[in-house]
């Protein structure tokens, strides 16, 4: 196939600087000793060659964290986390060496197949070591992505867009990072965000200069980058006056990760007339059928519509993780600014989801829209928790919220917890909520027309979430659709 040859050629060309981008470099890197102390924070900062101000920032967060207690208001239940029993800097460990595809868990292999990921790529993801001669091909999926990213970098540079790991940005653009880091999610914000501030390992940094429309979706690069960041990602995206950027975070290949705790922070800033569209497809390991293992995903994501007429839009498809604690929010500070939150949260097996958003209306004539679709199956619990608030000066604030929950089976739970506060009498907030069970009659109709029971569930659920799927960039909408069907497998008896 021509494409393969092209990839091989491209890999050859970039052979010289392949290490700069990192897959192999990181594999060889070491990790901090177990546990969390000032020394751990210093270790991480030193590893990243950070300037003194960054270390100070981290240490301050660490000291603050020591005085805080873990929040317990979410509707999730998990054993107490021993924070001294974790690694805080474990740049990707080399995966357990596997000799061939035959040794990979057949379940995983099956999932990859359904997602349409070529087996060569699976080998790379699962760490299969090929005999020396074949090695180049076995890793070409990774190199391919790197080369693509390199091409992108050139184009982005021409447009003036800065897009790099945040650890690099701290060194290369300290003035920008210092100006914005922690201004949306302060180091004192909440237990997990504070922890992240102290020990964050890496993440992405994006700056789009005034008047620039980012020439491409920032996504492919990150998908690789994502693999290489640790448990504590930190992302900062700034759209300057009149700028636009669409960013997709996610990994549609299910990752088996031994790290239990993931506490990421994402900060978005839009200036006057700017817009950021942030999409997430999250598919971390949800644990096994008995509820053992799986990721604890405690994420703080917030956008600040700092300038007038600016807009921030969050779209999320959450299908993975044992526990999800996540509320991508918008601070609508600029007049006429707009916040949007589109969410699909699916829980199956023993998964627990407590997710939603906060729309904080500060400016005049600010508008927000929330469309949340929760789907619960198995013995899972799925909670929408949302806050819509208008402050005293937010004249003319408007919000529309629609929360729909779909139950599959009779052992799961869906909960909707909206908080609404209007301190300005001109604010107009609308809230709609529905909870329904997937109807036996609908399923029977579908199977009578030849669909299997599982295909029928997948079809009905995809119809249920269509409004949100439409918000995703085209190619990811297709992947997300497949992912939804896969994550609901075995949900009907």
């Amino acid at each position, binding site marked *: 196939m021509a494409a393969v040859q092209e990839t091989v050629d491209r890999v050859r060309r970039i052979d010289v600087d392949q290490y700069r981008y990192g897959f192999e470099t990181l594999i060889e890197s070491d990790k901090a000793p177990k546990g969390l102390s000032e020394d751990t924070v210093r270790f991480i900062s030193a590893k990243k060659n950070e300037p003194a101000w960054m270390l100070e920032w981290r240490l301050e967060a660490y000291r603050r964290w020591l005085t805080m207690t873990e929040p317990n208001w979410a509707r999730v239940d998990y054993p107490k986390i021993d924070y001294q029993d974790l690694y805080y800097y474990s740049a990707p460990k080399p995966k357990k060496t596997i000799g061939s595809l035959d040794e990979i868990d057949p379940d995983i292999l099956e999932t990859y197949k359904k997602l349409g990921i070529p087996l060569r790529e699976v080998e790379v993801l699962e760490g299969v070591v090929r005999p020396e001669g074949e090695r180049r091909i076995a890793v070409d999926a990774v190199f391919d992505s790197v080369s693509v990213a390199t091409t992108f970098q050139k184009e982005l540079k021409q447009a003036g867009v800065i897009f790099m790991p945040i650890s690099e940005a701290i060194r290369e653009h300290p003035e920008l990072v210092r100006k914005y880091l922690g201004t949306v999610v302060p180091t004192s914000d909440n237990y997990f965000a504070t922890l992240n501030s102290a020990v964050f390992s890496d993440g992405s940094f994006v700056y789009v200069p005034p008047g620039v429309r980012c020439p491409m979706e920032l996504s492919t690069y990150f998908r690789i980058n994502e693999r290489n960041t640790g448990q504590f990602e930190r992302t900062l995206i700034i759209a300057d006056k009149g700028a636009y950027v669409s960013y997709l975070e996610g990994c549609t290949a299910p990752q088996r990760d031994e790290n239990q705790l993931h506490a990421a922070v994402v900060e978005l800033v839009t200036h006057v007339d700017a817009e950021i569209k942030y999409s997430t497809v999250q598919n971390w390991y949800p644990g096994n059928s008995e509820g053992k293992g799986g990721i604890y995903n405690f994420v703080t994501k917030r956008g600040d519509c700092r300038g007038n007429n600016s807009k921030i839009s969050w779209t999320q498809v959450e299908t993975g993780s044992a526990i999800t604690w996540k509320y991508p929010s918008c601070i609508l500070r600029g007049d006429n600014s707009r916040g949007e939150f589109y969410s699909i949260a699916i829980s199956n097996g023993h998964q627990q989801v407590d997710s939603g958003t906060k729309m904080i209306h500060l400016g005049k004539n600010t508008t927000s829209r929330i469309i949340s679709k929760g789907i619960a199956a198995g013995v899972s619990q799925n909670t929408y928790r949302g806050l819509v608030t208008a402050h005293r000066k937010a004249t003319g604030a408007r919000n529309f919220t629609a929360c729909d929950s779909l139950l599959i089976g009779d052992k799961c739970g869906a909960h909707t917890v909206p908080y609404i506060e209007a301190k300005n009498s001109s604010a107009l907030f609308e809230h709609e909520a529905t909870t329904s069970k997937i109807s036996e009659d609908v399923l029977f109709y579908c199977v009578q027309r*030849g669909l299997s029971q599982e295909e029928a569930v997948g079809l009905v659920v995809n119809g249920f979430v269509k409004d949100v799927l439409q918000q995703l960039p085209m190619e990811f909408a297709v992947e997300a659709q497949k992912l939804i069907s896969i994550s609901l497998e075995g949900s009907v008896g």
Partner: protein
Amino acid sequence: MSILEVKNLQVRVEEREILHGLSLTVNPGEVHAIMGPNGSGKSTLSHVIAGKPGYEVTGGEILFKGENLLEMSPDVRSSKGVFLAFQYPVEIPGVATMTFLRTALNAQRKARGESEFSTPDFLKKVRSVAASLNIPQDMLRRGVNVGFSGGEKKRNEILQMALFEPSLCILDEMDSGLDIDALRVAADGVNALRSPDRAMVVITHYQRLLNYIVPDFVHVMSKGKVVKSGGKELALELEASGYAQFEDAA
């Protein structure tokens, strides 16, 4: 070989026996009407043939082209050629009718080991069938049955029947909720699908439908059994005298 053979079928729903030894044989090319008062078990029969959960078969058997139908899951029955046109077709919000038709058709073809339809071939096929049934293109873009009128829902059922080319069509109370014009359009659609290798079972409460879909045989059901069978004139007889005479016979 017969397309459908129901032999001494006994069916329970939650401890209550609904069908007590029903028998029926349907051959290729034949159209059978099943008539009877409410609660006589007409719809139960159609559900059991299609494999709807919730019914317990306690005796008898159903053969479809000589195969034991009761051992097959409902989707397998569908792919083998059993089609049930529902009395109340369900709505599936967010799933475009076109998507649904294509997913279902390809699922059936896949189950039979046939190749899936390519998009252009499929569109061509749907469009020609839809045109013959007076179904506008915009209806195909809407969610399955969402906001459809009674007539549109029934035409959508017939569209699927035409598309899937089943060998056994069961029409459950197709006339319910239709005015006379809508009924005529639907009946024309059904008549166009009559063929020497296809059989139809038309379930109805009223004789009216049978003016438009003229059956070869008429069976009267009462209290879970066929109590009388005859030609199309039996339907007219019923129209004149009502079901009461059969209530006693059962």
